[in-house]
């Protein structure tokens, strides 16, 4: 500006700009006339043409949701299905007075306040000719009552739609999971075109993890509508492709037995087939009824579930972090053997406690008087703590950590379910990183008996037990057995997923450990000897008791003195039969007290049930021509084709 004042001819310059602005004014006017001319062309000259097109423009494309795939257990029992339910729907356009309509409808069917609130919210959002649900899940009697009175209520109709149903209710709820209405957040992450007609999506468990398989492909209908947008007839359709049916590895009978065996206690049980990594049961108690979530759970019930100290919505089997207690002893003993530590070849004298050289603190044994002379098998069979304090001291935390990591402790197993915990296998590096503190020798000792920082999920424990039982064969636990393609009905089996196996240094070492574990159950002095009575098979196991409550140096832990939520967790790991393992289990009974009393008997029930089922199936198999594909007979084809020509005894 300052330059402009001195050098430039302001007046001439201003004149130049003004003339250009005037030119622009003319240009703007001309262009505007051009636009108006275009509008004149469309709205006056070609009006007839477009008006006709507009009248004809009544073919709408309506998306049709696919039917969600079914979920079965390994034997073909239905775990999740779609059942037709009836809902009461209202088209606002046809209603004169919504309030009086509601009053009159309430004489016929019950309409909860919450559903009315939902209805009123939708009333403002949807268009006047859209059908809006007022009441879901009508009973057959209610449907009948509405049908009789229907002539009195134009614009009110009963709609049938499929809704998800879990026929077994609470059984296996943590594993199966549930579906619920798609949330705003989920809308962001899903492909909106394939979900255009879908209202529900898997929220937890298998329903969530295998959403992609279960959902299916959307279909379309070309429908003719009247001027108000109401459908008159369907012109053509592309059918949706239903989702795949999934057969899970879980045996729901076993699951139910295991859940029941926990009784009143909270806890978790995981059973795995060691030969292929199939998860046979994944129990977390308390359970919940997944059916409550399908149409939106009542707020009060949900709050109660969230705030309950029992945490029924928490999947303990997958994400529970428990001190593994003495169940780690076989693994550390194996570490000692494989690392060729001198210690394990010599007996030690257990006098009931252990002291670090030059220290006062007594690391106590669970048995007050001590076990006397203890060698490695006896240390496992009788679960001598002192022996393992000494072993841990010789091994050192680094070697213990490295060995346990190979069994999968401290990392998620990679099972295809969301929300798996990774547990914790402590090391000096971890402690420096996480807590910024040095590692103390005493911490090595208590790690040796599965206390201290070490935490494991029940799934990790079961998986590690399976690996131990198979001599180092590590398979990723999996829950999907096969999927059945909805179009071809061809089953697609999933195959075992090996992860880095552990190569034994000496096979005999593993056999020695397994023999000691067998004696935990079958030996005369084993900590779980009580459960061997009448078992028709050989089982290997290890008890564990995880302390939650620190007992003073001179005090004695008395169960009755401790509040229930601070009592010890009872643990047990086991597999059977010893020679050719078919099932490996890990059991955690929260606040159940000692593992031998609370957890071990459950293992017996679980394994009994599973092995007897296997035997039954074997006899059935030899009697019947089973489907080679292993399809459940009642599912894919009539049973008689399987039994044809063979008379059963």
């Amino acid at each position: 500006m300052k330059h402009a004042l001195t050098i430039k001819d302001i007046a001439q310059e201003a004149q130049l700009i003004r003339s250009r602005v005037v030119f622009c004014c003319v240009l703007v006017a001309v262009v505007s006339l051009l636009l108006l001319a275009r509008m004149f062309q469309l709205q006056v000259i070609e009006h007839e043409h477009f008006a006709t097109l507009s009248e004809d423009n009544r073919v709408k494309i309506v998306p049709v949701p696919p039917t969600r795939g079914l979920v079965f257990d390994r034997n073909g029992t239905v775990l999740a299905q779609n059942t037709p339910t009836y809902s009461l729907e209202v088209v606002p356009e046809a209603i004169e007075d919504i309030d009086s309509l509601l009053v009159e409808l309430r004489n016929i069917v019950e309409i909860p306040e919450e559903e009315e609130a939902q209805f009123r919210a939708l009333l403002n959002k949807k268009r006047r000719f859209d059908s809006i649900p007022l009441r879901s899940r009508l009973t057959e009697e209610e449907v009948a009552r509405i049908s009789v009175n229907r002539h009195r209520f134009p614009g009110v109709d009963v709609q049938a739609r499929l809704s998800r149903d879990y026929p077994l209710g609470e059984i296996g709820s943590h594993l199966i999971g549930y579906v619920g209405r798609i949330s705003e957040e989920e809308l962001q992450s899903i492909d909106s075109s394939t979900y255009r007609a879908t209202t529900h999506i898997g929220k937890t468990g298998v329903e969530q993890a295998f959403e992609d398989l279960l959902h299916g492909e959307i279909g379309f209908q070309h429908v003719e509508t009247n001027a108000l947008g109401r459908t008159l007839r369907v012109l053509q359709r592309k059918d949706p492709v239903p989702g795949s049916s999934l057969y899970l590895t879980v045996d729901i009978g076993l699951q139910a037995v295991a859940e029941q065996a926990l009784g009143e206690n909270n806890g978790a049980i995981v059973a795995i087939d060691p030969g292929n990594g199939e998860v046979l049961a994944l129990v977390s108690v308390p359970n919940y009824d997944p059916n409550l979530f399908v149409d939106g759970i009542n707020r009060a019930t949900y709050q109660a579930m969230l705030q309950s100290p029992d945490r029924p919505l928490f999947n303990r089997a997958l994400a529970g972090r428990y001190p593994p207690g003495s169940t780690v002893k076989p693994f550390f003993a194996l570490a000692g053997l494989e690392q060729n530590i001198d210690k394990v070849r010599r007996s030690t004298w257990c006098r009931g406690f252990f002291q670090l050289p030059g220290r006062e603190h007594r690391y106590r044994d669970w048995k007050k008087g001590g076990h006397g002379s203890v060698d490695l098998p006896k240390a496992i069979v009788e679960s001598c703590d002192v022996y393992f304090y000494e072993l841990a001291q010789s091994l050192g935390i680094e070697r213990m950590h490295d060995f346990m990591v190979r069994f999968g402790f401290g990392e998620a197993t990679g099972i295809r379910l969301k929300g798996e915990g990774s547990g914790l296998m402590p090391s000096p590096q971890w402690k420096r990183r996480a807590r910024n503190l040095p590692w103390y020798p005493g911490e090595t000792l208590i790690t040796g008996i599965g206390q201290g920082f070490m935490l494991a999920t029940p799934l990790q424990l079961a998986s590690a037990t399976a690996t131990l039982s198979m001599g180092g064969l590590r398979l990723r636990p999996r829950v999907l057995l096969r999927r059945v393609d909805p179009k071809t009905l061809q089953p697609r089996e999933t195959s075992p997923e090996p992860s880095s196996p552990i190569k034994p240094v000496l096979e005999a070492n593993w056999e020695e450990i397994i023999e000691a574990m067998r004696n935990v159950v079958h030996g005369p002095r084993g900590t779980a000897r009580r459960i061997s009575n009448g078992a028709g098979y050989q089982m290997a196991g290890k008890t564990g008791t995880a302390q939650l409550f620190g007992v003073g140096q001179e005090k004695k832990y008395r169960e009755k003195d401790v509040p229930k939520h601070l009592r010890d967790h009872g643990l047990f790991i086991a597999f059977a039969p010893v020679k050719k393992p078919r099932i490996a289990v890990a059991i955690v009974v929260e606040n159940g007290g000692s593992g031998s009393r609370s957890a071990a008997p459950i293992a017996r029930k679980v394994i009994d049930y599973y092995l007897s089922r296997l035997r039954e199936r074997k006899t059935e198999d030899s009697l019947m021509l089973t489907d080679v594909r292993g399809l459940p007979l009642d599912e894919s084809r009539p049973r008689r084709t399987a039994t044809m020509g063979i008379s059963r005894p």
Partner: protein
Amino acid sequence: MREDGSISQRLHLDLPLLIGLIVLSALGLVVLYSAGGESTSLVIRQALRLAAAFGIMLLVAQVAPRHLFHWAPWLYIIGLGLLVAVLFVGDIAQGAQRWLRLGPVSFQPSELAKLTVPMMVAYYFVDRLMPPKTFQVVIAAIIAVVPTMLIVRQPDLGTSLLIACSGLFVLFLAGMRWRLILGLFIALSASAPAMWHLMHDYQRQRVLTFINPEQDPLGAGYHIIQSKIAIGSGGVYGKGWLNGTQSQLDFLPERSTDFIFAVFSEEFGLLGVALLVALYLFVVFRGLYIAVQAQDSFGRLLAGSLTLTFFIYVFVNIGMVSGLLPVVGLPLPLISYGGTSLVTVMASFGVLMSIQTHRRLLSD
């Protein structure tokens, strides 16, 4: 100072312009209620955005043009920096990288460029003799082209077009010679094949669809066919508010945003369209009047450029919805649902008001 002007003068508001903007915004809310399926929440959200945008206009109007003049180079450099930043750390939405996140707020640096580019070009010319020499035209063109190319890269064809225009308008108003303009026009036509090469697939698709919408009636051509049916079936008097069947029955895509003009034309007919165009012309002519009245070259060039850019918005949107121009994805200012470009448009009106109202104070 006259009595009736005192309040608006003190607030640095230009009353005729303000009234024009308010009427347009109110009309926009009325159309939006219909286009959004009679959703009050949508209208309320837009009303809040409008209120915020008017607030920003008021704020900008308080800044005297001489401050804008001194800040112009710095604002331009900052804008350029942000445009480069967005290419590296910008958020990607719908295949384009336009957003820059600063804590909880995210914004499009390309919006800032809509103001800084004409400011910078005008700043450049204030010190020079007008009409500009060829060399100066080249410099000014570079000032405009660099941010334009950065925005093409994002890619955002509509916005880059607007920014290139805003720079060119300053050049034109500064008195660029006619033969140069002709030469530039020829050069642009010649470079069309190269542009085609640079375009993204979806942008090419839009051009192809523009040339022949009927080739893909259910795909890319669907927008244009449906919007032409909506406009054409509206006739002279329109189908009436809330009664546009094309718009109400879901046939018309993007009917709250870029294609809201089709809803308006269907429901209010040619008469409504004439009124709307007249309203826009009122605002544009008032803006150009402010440009003519401005006291210095910077004010004249800037006011003229911002006003003409606003008109380009209107022209391109109506042109594309009525099938005169390819679909480039520009909203109809003050009517379409959405807040990002609204803020910039209102800020530029704030600049206009500042130029108009600080004028007399300076001359006192």
